[in-house]
């Protein structure tokens, strides 16, 4: 295809949007709403996952050793644990560190009476952090079989709840995104069908003159893609400012919850949201118009 033809079909696609103003605007508005909802949902899902991940990384399995186990042997166990695929971090906690931490968490100023003593003598341990909390049971089973390990402490309930929340959110988000996409494809398809019926005469003339299928169809596909693109770019701007505003508001008014609520930064969030939304918009536009053009424009 010639560059001039490509340019011509692009211009025609662009003009189609204006020739069919009311319908195009209605479609852009609806697709914007869909992508806006998608964006909000995406922000919610990503931030919940972000918080869940942050919480997950705090869930640890603790292993204690047989009494009198040599330092070499303990180190060897440490290396074995570190080499496991599901393990993200292994931290050695000596008896002294365990006691310091206990004092800080539970005793505070009352710890003074224990000066010189360490009631937690022999409780050196490994704190093991997982990449994926759902793998905890397998790890625990393996740890129990390792010689030299006396006890394995774990938090099954936390791990399970976090994994379930994560899965639930993923499913719900997939379902909602799927519905929104279908609605958008249907809308674009309708707008393009309307455009085709308005320009039936022009299409008829093109056919009689001897225009190829591609030349007849492409302006409508370009129209769909442009509508999808505009429809996805507008809500991105809105979400950008809204998200920033919300983060500032939450940080100013709910500082108490800052440990629980972890917000992803705007830059980090938009690094993915921009391409995903634009691809979605363009994809919806392309698909919606292509379906319609194939159905209505049999040359």
């Amino acid at each position: 295809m010639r560059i001039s033809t490509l340019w011509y079909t692009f211009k025609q696609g662009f003009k189609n949007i204006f020739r069919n103003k009311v319908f195009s605007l209605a479609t852009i508005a609806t697709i914007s709403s869909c992508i806006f909802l998608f964006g909000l949902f995406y922000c919610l899902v990503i931030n919940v996952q972000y918080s869940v991940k942050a919480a997950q990384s705090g869930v640890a399995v603790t292993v204690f050793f047989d009494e009198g186990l040599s330092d070499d042997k303990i180190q060897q166990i440490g290396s074995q644990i570190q080499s496991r695929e599901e393990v993200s971090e292994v931290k050695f906690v000596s008896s002294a560190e365990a006691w310091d931490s206990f004092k800080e968490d539970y005793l505070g100023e009352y710890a003074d009476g224990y000066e010189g003593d360490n009631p937690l003598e022999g409780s050196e341990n490994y704190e093991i952090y997982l990449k994926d909390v759902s793998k905890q049971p397998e790890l625990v089973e393996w740890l129990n079989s390792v010689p030299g390990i006396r006890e394995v402490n774990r938090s099954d309930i936390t791990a399970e709840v976090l994994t379930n929340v994560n899965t639930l959110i993923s499913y719900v988000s997939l379902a909602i995104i799927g519905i929104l996409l279908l609605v958008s494809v249907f809308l674009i398809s309708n707008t393009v069908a309307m455009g085709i019926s308005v320009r039936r005469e022009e299409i008829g003339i093109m056919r009689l003159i001897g225009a190829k299928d591609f030349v007849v169809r492409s302006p409508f596909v370009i129209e769909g893609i442009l509508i999808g693109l505009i429809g996805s770019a507008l809500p991105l701007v809105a979400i950008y400012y809204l998200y920033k505003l919300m983060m500032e508001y939450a940080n100013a008014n709910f500082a108490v919850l800052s440990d629980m609520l972890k917000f992803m930064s705007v830059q980090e969030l938009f690094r993915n949201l921009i391409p995903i939304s634009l691809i979605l918009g363009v994809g919806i536009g392309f698909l919606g118009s292509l379906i319609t053009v194939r159905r209505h424009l049999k040359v």
Partner: protein
Amino acid sequence: MITMESVSKSYSTGVPALNDVSLHIKKGEFVFIVGDSGSGKSTLIKLLLRELTPTSGRIIVNNYDLSRLRRRKVAKFRRNVGVVFQDFRLLKDRNVYENVAFAQRVIEVPTRQIRKNVPAMLSLVGLAGKYKAKTWQLSGGEQQRVALARALVNNPPILLADEPTGNLDPRNSWEIMKLLEEINRRGTTVLVVTHNREIVNAMRKRVITMRKGIIISDEEKGEYIDED
């Protein structure tokens, strides 16, 4: 240039619109096709444009066997046949120049070439001075000239005119017919479907008369034959 061999066409109702029609039109001929409503003229035009395929028989237009033509070759074939209609079928949102250039753009003629061809064609039809006008600002005769320019700008060897004077007053009708004659003189084969008895009788060209799907007369320098 155009050959039809025992062509029949029936629609789903079963009534034959064309019944065993055979004809041959040589390169450079000027032919009138006349007949009343329901005589099969429109079906004939649609068959020649490959908008329809015959139920039986063979149609050859400029070496294209239309009965065997594959769907994806239809576009290329249609570039051999220019066509104008009674209702002009111009694009109302575009001016005269754009209407004519449209025919070239959609078959991917380079822009530089379009800029040369369109003014030349507008000069031929006598509308060089009105290239910026919107089509609704033109008279019926002028609109038909634009339609002619659009049909001819791609230089097709055949021109089909379906009732080209149907919406025009006698003066404009004559001007259009003179233009068609001039186009024919330049080498284009011209087929004109018409009801206009005065024009047919005055021009003394080949006249093919159809009635109820068959050709009842085909005469060189013929006349309009009434139905009775």
